[in-house]
C-alpha cells in the first residue's frame, strides 16, 4: 500500500534512479568510499577548525592518506593503471566531488586537483609518460613500500598573464642544451598563481610558451621537484575559502629533457614542434572538469536541507512550550515562510544536481566518441580547418539523427537510425554541440545561482548561520560557493562559451525537439508546460536578437555585445537545469516501481518531486520571460507591432502555464513539516 506523505529525505535508492547509476556498482562503491571520507576525516577536520589556517599542515595531510586508502586517489586511473573503474570517469569524479562537497568542497578540490595534474598526461601524454606518472601516482598496493607521487596542474599565472584568458601564457621555454644527435634539454621558467596541491606536489604539469626560435608555440611540460634548478613552492595563497586544499603561488626555473613535453614532439627543420599546443591539452582537460565543480555547489544546497529542518523544528525546545504542542514539535515550521523558502533551496539543489549529472553522463558517452573521432581524423589526415569542414558536412545527418532519436522507437526507421548511431563523426558533432552547452551551463548556473541560494540557506539558520558551529557548515559552504563560481573559468568565461554554443543549429534543433517532448509531458504535473513555453520564448527571442539591429544599426546578437548575449546565456541555463530535473523526476516515477525498497513510498516521492519540478520550471520560465522582455524591448525605442504581438503571446503562454504553481509550493512545504529526519547529522559539526 502506498503512502502519499513524504516519509524521509531521499536516499541512495532514489538518487541512483534519478541520476541513472542503479546498475553501476562501481560507481555506487565510489560513492560509499567518498561518503566515508567526507563524513569521517573531512568533517572532523572542519569541526576541529582546521580550515582556519592558510598553511598546509599534518592535520590536512590526513586527507591524502584518506583519499589513498579509500580508492579516491586511483579513481581517475584506468584498470590497467591500478584503478577500479572501467571506461570514462566523468560520472565517477562527479559523484565523488558531490559526496565530498556535501561536507567540504575544499577537500573535493584537493581530490580533483590530483586528477587534474594527471589529466594532461592521461588525455594527451605519450604511452611512456602515461605509464610512468600514473604508476608513480598510484597509492601503494598491499606489500609495497613506497610513497605515491602527488601532482599539481600549473596553468594560472600572476597578472597580467594566463587566468581568465588561457591564451596569454607568460611561462617560457628555451633550449638550454641540444647535444648532437641527443635529446634537447629545455630551460623552463614559469610562475604560478593559485596552484592547488603545491605544498606536496612531486611533479607539476605546466603550460609554457616558446621563447626560442628552435621551439614552436606553446605546450605543456612535466616538471619534477628534483629536476635541476629552482622548484620553489612559493607563498600560500591567502584564501578565505576551500582551506582544506593546498594552494600556493610557486616559481619554477628548471632544466628538463624535451621528452617531458606532454604528448611528445617532432623535430622539423631543426625546430622542436610539440605534438599538442597548450590550448589543445587544456581543452581536452577543462572540457569535463567544470562539471564536478558545478556539482560541488549542488551538493551544498542539498546538504542544507536536513540541518535547516532540524533547526526549524527544534528552535523552541527547552522553552516553555511543552512536548506535543505545535510550537515544540514544529518550531519555526508553524510559519509557512520558512518552509516555502527552504523548498526553493531544495528545488535549486535538485535542479543543479540533475543538470550536473546529466552533463557528466553525456561526457562519459562523449569521451570514447572523441577518441575515435581523433583516430579517424588522423587516419584521414583531417586536421584544423579540414576537420571542421568535414564535421560541418555532417550537420544534416546530425539533425536527421536527432529527429529519429526523438521519434518513438516503433515508428522510426531502425536501419537508418542504427547507421547514424554508428557514425562517429555524427555522434561527435552531436556530443560536441551538447557539451558546448551543458558543461558551461552547469558551471555557470549551479555555482552562480547556487551561491545566491546558499545565502538563503544560511539565512534560514538565523544568527546560527553566521557562526562557525552552524550545523552542516553552511556559512563555510556559502563562502566556498563563491570560489566555485570563479575557479576553472569564472562566470564570464562560461557565458562567452555559451554565447558561441547556443546558436549552433544542432543545439537549436534539439531545443525544438525538447519543446515537442515537453508539450507531450505537459499533463503529467511536472511543470513541463512552463518549460515548453519558456524554451519557445527563449528560441523566439534568440532568433529575434540574431535578426535585428539596434537603432544605430549595430547587431544585437554579437560576441562583443555582452549585455545581450550574457543574459540570454543565463536564461538558457535556467531552462536546462529545470528540464534535467523534470526528466530525472519522470525517470524516478517510471523506474522506481522496479525497486522494492521504494514500493511503499514511490507515490510520495513522485508527488513531491512533481511539485518541486513544477516550482522550478515556473521559476525558470519566469526568469526567462523577464530576461527576454528586457532584451526584446530594451534595445528599441519602440517595438514593432507584429513582433510585439508575437512576443506578447509567447509571454502570456508562460504566464498562463504558472497555474497551480503556488499550490505545488504549499504541498511541498507541507511535506517538510511531516518528513522524518535522522536524530542527528551523520557528521560532526
Amino acid at each position: 500500500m502506498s503512502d502519499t506523505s513524504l516519509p524521509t529525505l531521499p536516499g541512495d535508492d532514489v538518487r541512483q534512479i534519478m541520476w541513472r547509476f542503479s546498475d553501476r556498482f562501481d560507481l555506487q562503491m565510489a560513492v560509499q568510499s567518498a561518503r566515508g571520507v567526507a563524513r569521517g576525516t573531512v568533517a572532523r577536520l572542519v569541526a576541529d577548525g582546521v580550515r582556519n589556517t592558510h598553511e598546509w599542515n599534518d592535520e590536512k595531510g590526513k586527507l591524502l592518506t584518506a583519499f589513498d586508502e579509500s580508492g579516491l586517489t586511483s579513481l581517475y586511473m584506468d584498470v590497467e593503471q591500478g584503478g577500479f573503474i572501467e571506461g570514462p570517469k566523468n560520472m565517477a569524479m562527479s559523484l565523488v566531488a558531490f559526496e565530498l562537497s556535501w561536507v567540504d568542497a575544499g577537500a573535493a578540490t584537493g581530490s580533483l586537483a590530483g586528477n587534474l595534474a594527471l589529466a594532461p598526461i592521461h588525455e594527451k601524454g605519450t604511452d611512456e609518460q602515461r605509464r610512468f606518472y600514473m604508476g608513480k601516482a598510484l597509492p601503494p598496493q598491499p606489500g609495497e613500500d613506497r610513497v605515491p607521487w602527488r601532482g599539481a596542474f600549473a596553468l594560472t599565472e600572476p597578472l597580467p598573464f594566463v587566468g581568465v584568458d588561457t591564451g596569454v601564457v607568460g611561462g617560457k621555454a628555451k633550449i638550454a642544451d641540444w647535444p648532437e644527435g641527443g635529446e634537447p634539454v629545455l630551460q623552463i621558467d614559469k610562475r604560478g598563481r593559485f596552484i592547488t596541491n603545491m605544498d606536496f606536489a612531486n611533479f607539476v604539469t605546466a603550460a609554457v610558451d616558446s621563447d626560442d626560435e628552435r621551439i614552436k608555440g606553446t605546450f605543456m611540460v612535466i616538471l619534477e621537484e628534483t629536476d635541476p634548478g629552482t622548484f620553489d613552492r612559493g607563498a600560500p595563497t591567502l584564501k578565505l575559502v576551500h582551506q582544506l586544499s593546498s594552494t600556493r603561488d610557486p616559481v619554477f626555473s628548471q632544466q628538463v629533457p624535451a621528452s617531458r613535453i606532454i604528448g611528445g614532439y617532432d623535430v622539423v627543420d631543426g625546430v622542436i614542434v610539440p605534438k599538442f599546443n597548450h590550448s589543445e591539452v587544456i581543452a581536452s582537460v577543462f572540457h569535463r572538469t567544470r562539471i564536478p565543480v558545478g556539482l560541488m555547489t549542488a551538493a551544498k544546497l542539498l546538504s542544507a536541507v536536513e540541518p535547516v529542518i532540524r533547526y526549524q523544528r527544534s528552535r523552541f525546545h527547552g522553552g516553555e512550550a511543552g512536548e506535543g504542542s505545535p510550537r515544540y514539535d514544529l518550531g519555526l515550521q508553524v510559519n509557512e515562510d520558512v518552509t516555502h523558502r527552504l523548498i526553493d533551496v531544495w528545488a535549486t539543489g535538485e535542479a543543479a544536481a540533475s543538470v550536473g549529472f546529466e552533463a557528466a553522463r553525456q561526457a562519459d558517452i562523449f569521451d570514447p566518441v572523441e577518441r575515435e573521432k581523433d583516430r579517424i581524423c588522423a587516419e584521414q589526415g583531417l586536421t584544423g580547418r579540414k576537420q571542421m569542414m568535414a564535421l560541418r558536412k555532417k550537420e544534416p545527418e546530425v539533425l536527421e539523427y536527432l529527429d529519429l532519436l526523438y521519434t518513438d522507437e516503433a515508428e522510426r526507421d531502425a536501419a537508418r537510425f542504427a547507421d547514424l548511431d554508428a557514425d562517429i563523426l555524427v555522434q561527435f558533432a552531436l556530443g560536441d554541440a551538447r557539451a558546448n552547452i551543458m558543461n558551461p551551463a552547469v558551471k555557470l548556473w549551479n555555482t552562480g545561482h547556487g551561491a545566491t541560494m546558499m545565502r538563503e540557506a544560511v539565512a534560514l539558520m538565523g544568527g546560527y548561520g553566521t557562526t562557525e558551529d552552524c550545523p552542516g557548515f553552511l556559512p563555510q559552504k556559502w563562502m566556498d560557493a563563491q570560489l566555485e563560481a570563479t575557479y576553472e573559468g569564472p562566470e564570464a568565461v562560461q557565458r562567452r562559451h555559451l554565447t558561441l554554443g547556443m546558436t549552433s543549429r544542432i543545439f537549436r534543433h534539439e531545443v525544438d525537439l525538447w519543446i515537442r517532448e515537453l508539450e507531450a509531458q505537459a499533463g503529467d504535473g511536472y511543470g513541463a508546460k512552463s518549460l515548453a513555453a519558456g524554451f519557445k520564448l527563449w528560441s523566439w527571442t534568440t532568433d529575434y536578437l540574431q535578426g535585428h539591429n539596434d537603432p544605430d544599426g549595430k547587431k544585437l546578437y554579437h560576441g562583443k555585445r555582452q549585455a545581450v548575449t550574457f543574459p540570454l546565456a543565463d536564461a538558457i541555463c535556467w531552462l536546462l537545469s529545470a528540464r534535467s530535473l523534470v526528466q530525472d523526476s519522470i525517470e524516478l516515477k517510471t523506474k522506481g516501481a522496479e525497486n522494492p525498497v521504494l514500493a511503499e513510498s514511490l507515490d510520495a516521492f513522485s508527488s513531491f518531486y512533481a511539485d518541486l519540478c513544477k516550482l522550478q520550471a515556473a521559476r525558470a520560465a519566469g526568469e526567462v520571460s523577464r530576461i527576454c522582455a528586457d532584451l526584446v524591448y530594451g534595445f528599441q525605442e519602440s517595438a514593432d507591432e507584429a513582433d510585439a504581438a508575437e512576443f506578447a503571446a509567447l509571454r502570456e503562454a508562460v504566464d498562463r502555464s504558472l497555474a497551480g504553481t503556488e499550490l505545488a509550493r504549499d504541498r511541498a512545504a507541507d511535506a517538510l513539516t511531516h518528513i522524518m529526519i535522522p536524530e542527528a547529522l551523520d557528521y560532526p559539526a
Partner: protein
Amino acid sequence: MPTTYQIVVCGGIVPDPLQSLEPVMGPTGPALKNEMMLPSVLDPWAWHALFEAADLAKRHPGSKVWLVSMSPKAKLQQVMMGLAQKVPFELVVVDGPASGFADAVETAAALAGAIEGIPDLDRSKLLLFGGWQSASRGTGAVLQMIGEILGIDEQFQGVDKLTVDDSGGLEILERIEAGAWQKSRCAGAPAVLGWATGELPEPPNNPQIGMQNMRGIMPALQQAKPAALSGEGLSYDSVESPKQRRETRVETEMDADAIADEIAAWLKG
C-alpha cells in the same frame, strides 16, 4: 600443517543508528516507521565479527570467510556497496525481514539452513561468528540456536579476543559482569563465537577488494531465496522505543576525571 578455518559470519542489517526509529504496529505485526526508506548498516556487532573473521582468515592462509545474512535483499545490496570494500568475503543471502521482530527460532532455522547449503563447507573447520547482540532488537539467542541446530556445542558470547595457539587451540576472552573478562580455552573448531566489539578498527575502504567481492555478491543477491518465516506462535502486544532522553551539555572546561566522576555519580543514582 597450518590450521585453516572456514568462518561463517551471521549478520543482518539494521537502520543506521542515527535515524529516528519509531516502532509502529503494521498489518502483519510490529515494524519501524518508514523502515524501507531508512539507510541501513550491517548490525554493528556483526560488523565487528566480520572484521575479526577477515583478520583471522588473513593470519591463517587458506581460510575463507562467508557472510550469511537474512535481510531484504534490495536493502542489503545498498549496504554491500560500502561493506564489500572492507574485507574479502563470500555472501550468502536469505531474503527476509530485518526489523528485529521476526521470530528468533525461525530466523535461526533459516540461517542454519543457508549455512548447511554452502557447498563443500567443512564443518570440522567451521567457526560460526556473529554478534552477541543486535541493534535491531537483540534477543541474544539467534546465534546460539544456529549453533545448536548445526550441532556445535562449544559456544562463547561477548567475545573480545580470539587467540589461536600453535596447536590450533582457541583461547577466548569473553565479557562477563563488572567489566571483567573470562578466559576460556577449547581444542579448536568447530565453535560459535558471539562477538562484542573485538579489538580491530574499521578497515579503510579498498575498492579493489570491493570489485573482487562484487563478482560473487551480485549473483548471491539475485539468487537469494525468500526465508520461510511463518510468524506463527509469536505475537506482540505492543512495541515501543526505550524511554530515554538525549540530554546534551557542552562542557569545554571540565577535565576528563571530572566528567568521569559526574557520569559515575549519575549511574549510581
